[in-house]
Each structure stands twice: as structure tokens, then as C-alpha cells.
């Protein structure tokens, strides 16, 4: 069973969201990286870009396939994890830590409230099987 930290929020597209005082950090879940296999390329937006909840904001390439990334919340990108360009495997090795993808300043606080908690996400994975 994959690792699902209790203190995070989750989207149906298998992203995790870590809220902080004025920004949220976004990454992909352990379950997602297991399904993807070896990640070899990550395409992310640039600082200052606006991303919109439900719209595509980037993509992940693994040796098997490519998967688009859909924004779990709306907001402006404030920081991007550039180390993933040269070390995309961090996304497999440490999905909740060094494998984080972007930080954004959310436009709507309510977006976060709509996300799943750990238990709901666990159920979501079960239902997908």
C-alpha cells in the first residue's frame, strides 16, 4: 500500500497539496509515481504564470507514457522546483519531499476546502482499482 500522509490534501488527479500561510505546495502522490514508473521528464509552468483549477498546467513523462497535470487550485505560481529538470527521478524517490513540483498563491481559499483528506483519497484509490 502506498504512502498517504495524513496532513496533506489530495486531488482526484493524484496530486497532493500542502497548504501554508500564504501559499500551497503541489506534488504528485506516492501512488501516482508508482503507477507512472520511472519519471524521466517533468514539464512545469514558470514563476508568475496563472494556473486555473481543472486546467492543464504541465506534464510528467515516464518511460512508459506521458501524463498531463491538472491544477487542483487556481492561483499564481510563486516558485518552481527547477531541480526536477536534471533529476526527474526525485519525483519517484521522494514524492512528498524533494520531489515537490510548484508553489502557488491560491486565489480562492475555498478551492482547498474542496480537496480530499487522506482517508477520502485512500478510498478514491480503492474505487479506481
Amino acid at each position, binding site marked *: 500500500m502506498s504512502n498517504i500522509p495524513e496532513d496533506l490534501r489530495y486531488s482526484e488527479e493524484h496530486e497532493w497539496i500542502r497548504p501554508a500561510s500564504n501559499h500551497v505546495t503541489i506534488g504528485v502522490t506516492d501512488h501516482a509515481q508508482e503507477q507512472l514508473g*520511472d519519471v524521466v*521528464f517533468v514539464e512545469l509552468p514558470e514563476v508568475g504564470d496563472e494556473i486555473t483549477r481543472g486546467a492543464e498546467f504541465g506534464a510528467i513523462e515516464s518511460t512508459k507514457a*506521458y501524463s498531463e497535470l491538472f491544477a487542483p487550485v487556481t492561483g499564481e505560481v510563486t516558485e518552481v522546483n527547477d531541480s526536477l529538470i536534471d533529476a526527474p527521478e526525485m519525483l519517484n524517490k521522494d514524492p512528498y519531499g524533494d520531489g515537490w513540483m510548484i508553489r502557488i498563491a491560491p486565489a480562492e481559499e475555498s478551492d482547498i476546502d474542496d480537496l480530499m483528506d487522506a482517508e477520502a483519497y485512500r478510498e478514491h484509490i480503492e474505487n479506481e482499482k
Partner: protein
Amino acid sequence: MSDMKKTVFHDRHVSLGAKMVEFGRWEMPISYPNGTVEEHLATRRTAGLFDVSHMGRFRITGRGALRFLNHVLTNNVEALDPRQQGSQYTLIPTEEGGAVDDAYLYCFVPDEYLLVVNASNTEKDWEHLNGFLGGFEDVTMENVTDEESMLALQGPNSRAILEKLLDDGLLPEPMRNSVSTAAVAGTPTRVARTGYTGEPLGFELFVPANRAVELWDALVAEGAVPVGLGARDTLRLEAGLPLYGQDLGVNSQGEEMPLLSTPLAKVGLSFAAGKGQFVGRAALEKQFEAFGRIMRRDYSMMDVLPRMVRSVAVAGRGVARTGSKVLKEGKEVGHVTSGTMVPCCVVEGHGLESRLTDEKKLRSICLAHIDSDIVEDEQMEIEIRGKKVPAVVVPYHLRSEAPPFARPIIFDHEPPSKDLPQGDEPTQVRSLLKKSLENHVWRQKECINLIPSEMTTSPMTSLLSITDPSCRYAEHRSSKAFYDEEIFYYQGTDFIDEVERMLHEELCKFLGCTEVETRVISGQMANMAVFSAMVDYLNRTDRKSEPRRIARIMNNHIAKGGHLSAQPMGALRDFVARDPQTERPAVFNFPVLVENPFKIDVPKTLEMIDEVRPEFIIFGKSMVLHREPVAAVRRHLDDRKLDAVVMYDMAHVLGLVGPHFQEPFKEGADMVTGSTHKTFYGTQRGIIGGRFEENEERYQLWEAVQRRAFPGSTSNHHLGTLLGLLMACYEMNYFKDSYQTKVLSNAKAFAVALKDSGLDVAGDPEIDFTETHQVLVRVGYGRGPEIARRLEDNNIVCNYQAMPDEEGFTVAGGLRFGVSEMTRFGMEPDDFKELAGIIHDVVVSDKDVRDEAKALRQRFLDLGFCFRKEDYADLWQDLHELIG
């Protein structure tokens, strides 16, 4: 997944934690827990183990098998020979010139074939092939996929792993596509040097299904890393190998492609006469013509092959995937057929000393089916998720010719340039003189020179080489109008005329023959002049038709010591015919003894002569420990009344001609070629000797040799070194008895001392390892270059040498030493014993012995076996002063 087929290794995959997927109705591992990237790199760095038992395997037997296979496959089945090349890439063509599948055909024992096809096409292929069976008598085709399992072991450690587990039999000869039958880890195994990874060291193993798991376990225990289908795909993509259904047969758009749209298919295509009207021949001949034109950048037949599958590197950020559009100047020119990010090891250093590091990087590469008029280096764009990413057509992504590693080729990588000293001409002159002086002192006073093909000339030989006529011309040829007198074209040549006649006399005396041609300026040129003369002679009765080449030649294989100057890849290339049956150069190599691969197996060679009926037999090699069996072969030819010309390229051993080593003409050689600067201690030139008498028919061959020397090979035949050579001939004829015995006894003493020091000396210990001036030492697979460099750093100069079972010079595991030069400087058996100890310290203990080597050399600075300048002091002085 329950109704899917499982290979016998299924339990192993599951217990290793593999992710299993469906592939061609089989349940197969896509990757193991370490993941595709690590599996890819493990194959490139160590050895990957692949379960490929899902591939379809058909056994074809019966007297009609060859005819049947020649009809339904594209390659030339007659070229298969378990002794030489037991496997080949091939394709199953359609009548329209498309591909039903691509495949590998194996022949481990005569008249029995194994066809390996893609798993997903097995049923289709079986039905297709069965459709043709009715037209052939005495052919049986069986599907043996389930009774025999198949594993691939690929990567730099694969050879060592198999060697460790080898109980009986041998691994295949060190050439791609060779095969053997052996027992590996107690399992009867058929082994082939084939694979789908681009690894220069790689094997595919066929084993009875009920014994296969044992073999898997043994290979894993020796360090082979299980690799899934994911990495199998990235490895083959990096190697530029096509996958049926994407890059071959049917493209990523689902469209059928002409077979030669995939350039690699050309390797598997033959129009040999023996193939008759095979399936698709007419269409494929048209494609072949179109392909040739496109390669010549003539696009007049592009309608036949509108698009081709090419290797493409993605220059910008992004991953090209199967189906991505390829654009050139905004216009669609094709699609990506296979593409992904592949990992590679970062390479440190450059050239022979470059090493793969533990660091890895990822690069985005693909194969794309694009317009045939797009050429290498052209800039294109690939549409990746709506973005146009720059890409460039490249010749390849990986090179396999430098074992043990496959080397990634990064399209925009430039090797570092070596700096040259800068300055104006006067500055450069000073620097050049200084460096020449340093080099001379180093090689002549501080180094132990052990390269067997090198020699220091005596002071008088050296001096004469640079006196006048060193800057002159003296072209001449004999004329029948003047009773075969030599007619010179220029004035001022009376002296050199006399020198050449004296040289002729001295060399005839030395070689024991009647004719010598001395105008060739190297051993290689001597060989080329003889080969060219052979062609001239063979065509002597018909001067109007296109001349034919030498039909069948026997020689030493390059890996067994044969020199490039008598190989199809070297000087023989333009003179040897192609064997119509195998479509390879019609060269047949002397069989060698299994227990001593440095020695020709005489009984087997005589059998081969009866079978091959060669027109031309070439003895001689550059890795040479033994005499060549000239007398035995001559006797056999005479007994059988076979008309073959026997040549002995004595290159290395020319200076040993005589009763202590071998007398080639007494033994029955027709011609001897050689270079005059190895054991023969003359200037750097070549010679050709012949035994022909003027009254015999064969004398026409000798006349052809003279014509092919001049005007065929040289105009200016380097008169200075010719003069020097005459001096060396006097020295040789005068001193040869003591010189030759000393060289031969020193070589044996050196070999024994190296062995006693603990080093692994190659050859037969019964004869003290060598019958020549050479000694060979095994230092470990692939370690030759590094150790030879280390010895050089310690003032001991030799060369690294690939041993008979090794794949090439980059994995050379031997050192080659020659004692002749240091023998001339006075070294005796005890001195070579001392030297053996010093060499041992470098090879085994990596000790710094520079001072010891230098000190040893300082005791041997005086060149012997030559006339002393002191005895001719007056003339020496005058000549010396005149030079400068």
C-alpha cells in the same frame, strides 16, 4: 491475466516483484522494482538478463529447408555456417515488398534452422509460412516455442559471467552472429552472439524449457541483473534497432511501409543467385535501386520509398512519442515511430581512456518516419503537446564497435581539442628541434624498446639513408627490346643502378631465391603489389573483359594474428572476389589448434585446402609465436596436383630467415614478402622475393609483380633508404648467424622468466612459449591498453594486443613484446630475466620502476651485429660532415 501464457521464468519474475503486463498474449515483466532506468543502465554497465521466451521459435529441418527458407525470407540462408557465421538478421517479406515480420535465423548444426520471430506476430508468421510449405519437398516446420526457452544476456560483463559458468564447449568466436553449443551451469545451451540492445558483448541462449530456470538462477547468482520489457525497449531504441509495428512493416500511423523504409532492413536483404525468385524479389529489387539513389541524394525514385525511418535527436526540451508529428519549415514531413527519454552513463575523459561514470543523464531521442530527401544534420521540429520542439537527424545514437561498452553518442558533443604549441616559424623551429632531441634521447638512451615490429638501424645504415641520392628519382623498367636490361628514365642514376643490382644479389643470397623486387617502400605495399600482380596474372589470356579477382584465398584470421596487409578489410580488399554463396570476401582462414590458437592446425588446414581449392595461400602474421607449415602445405598441394600460389608474408620474421627459424623457399613458398625493418634490421621498406625461373610459365606472374611495383605502386622509390638497406643487407648477411640464434634464445629466456615471475605467458610451455622473437603475456581481459600505457610511463615500450578469443583492440587483454631490438643492443638471457622482474612489478604491483628501467637501458647503448664506424673512420667523417 489468467488466460495469458506464462514463460517458465514466471515465478521468478513474480518473486522478484516485477510489474507484469500483457505482451503478445504473454504475461511478461515490464520492469522489476529498480525500474526501467536502472535496468537500462545495469545492462550498459554490467549485464542485463532478459526473459525473451515469449518470442516465437520455429524449427525448420529436412533436405528442402534451405530452399524453403531462401524463398520465404529476405536474407541469404546459404551464407549461414555454424563454424563461421551461424546466425543472421532476416525479414519475412510480402509479395509486394512489405514485411510480415522481422526475425533472426540461427543454424547451430548443419541443415537445421531456428527462426525466431516477434511474440505478437507468432501466429500470423506461422500461418504465412505454412502457406508456402506445400511448394517444397522434404521440409518440416515445428513450433518449438514451448519446448525450448530463450534468454538474452547482454552487457559488458556478459562474457565473464558465461565464462565462469561454462562447463563444456566454447563460447562463440568473438564476432557478432557467431554461434556455439556448450554446457552452461550444467545446462545444454546453444549460444549465439546476438541481441537487441546494441551491446557489443551480448549473447542469446537457447535451453530446454525444463532446465531453463536452473540457468536463470545461475546467471543471476553471478550478477546478471533481470531486465524487463521497458528497458528492452529503451535499449533497442538507443541502439537504433527497429520494432515491428512501429518502425518496421507497419508504421505508427498503422500504414504499411515498404521494407527498405527501415534502412537496417538492408542488412537482412540479399539478392544472391541461390535465392531464386524469392517472395517479393521484384518489388525489393526496385526498392533497393531507389534506396541506392536516395543514399546518393538522387531523389528520382522517391515515389518507391517516399519516407524512411531515421534516428532523430530532440534538441529542445520535451519527449517525442510514437505518433508525434515531425515538421520541417512548418510543413509536416512525417511522424515519430518510437521515442522516449533514455538514460545514459556520463563519460569521463576521452578516446581509449574514456570511462563510464556512475553519474547518469537522460536524453530525448526517437526514430521517425520522415521524407526520404531529409539528410543528416537537417533541422526539424517535432510537435510535442502543441509545442514545436527543435530536433535534428543524426546518423546514430549509440556506437557498438568499442567493446566492452556500448558508447552513447550525444549529437552536439564535441571532444576536447588537443592544443598545439603556438609561435612564429623561428620559435617553432627551436621547439621542434628541442622536442626531437628529447624524443631521440628518450627512445635511444632511456627506454627499453620491445615493440616487435620496430628496430634501430645501425649508424652507417642511418647515415647512408640521408646521403644523396635520398632526394633523387630513378624510375626504371626492364625492356624486352633490350634483352630485359633495366632502362632508366633520368640521368645521374648510374650509382643507384649499381646499388639496386647489388641489393638484389644480397637479398637473393639472404632469402635463398632467384628474384627480388626492392622498389616497394613498405611491407604493405609489397603485399598489394603481389595481390595486384595475381589479378593481372589470372587475367593474362584475356585483356579485354573486365578482369576477375582472386577467386578463393586462404590466410590467417586477423584475430589469430593475421595482419591487416593480408585481410579483406586491409590491403586485400580490392583484389579478392566475393564468394557467390556467402556474399562475403572469398577468404578462408586457417583452422587453429583448440589448445593453442597461435598455431595452425595442419591436418584440418589440408582438409580445408581440398574443400576450398584456393588459388592463393597467404602465410604470415603479426602476432606470431610459431613457424608456418609451408612445407606440409606444399607437399599436400603437390600430392593433390593443386595449382595454388603460396606466399609467405614474413614481415615480422624476415630477419630470422635461415636454418635457425625457417627457410621459406626451401620449404616450397613461391613468393615471400616482408618489411625490412622489424627483425630484419634495415631501413623502413618492403621487399618481394620469388622463386620463379625464366623458362617457366609462372615467370609471367613474376613479371607482373615487377610491373605492379613500378609503375604500379611507386614512382619515386625512396633512394636514400634503398641505399641504407644495402648497408643493412651486408650487416645482416655477415652477422645473421649469431644475431638470429641470440634473438631466438633471448625470446625463450624472456618468456620463461616472465612466466616464472608469475605472469601469464601465452603459448606452448613445452617449447618455452615461442619460436620467434615475440612473447605474449595475458594481463586480463580489457586491461592491455591501460597496462601498456603504464609500462610506457615507466620507460618500457611495448604494445597492447587483442588475444585470439577477444573481440577487438579496445578489450585487448594481452601485451606483445619483441626481443630483437634490445638483443641488438647486447641484452642477454640474464638481462631479460631482470627485465621480466621489472615488468612484473609494473603489471602486478603498479610499482614505479622508471629509474630501474632507465638504469637497465643505460647498460645497453651500443648497437651490435653491425659494422663499426670506427673501422671506416675516414669515410664516415667525410660523409657525416657533408650532411650538415
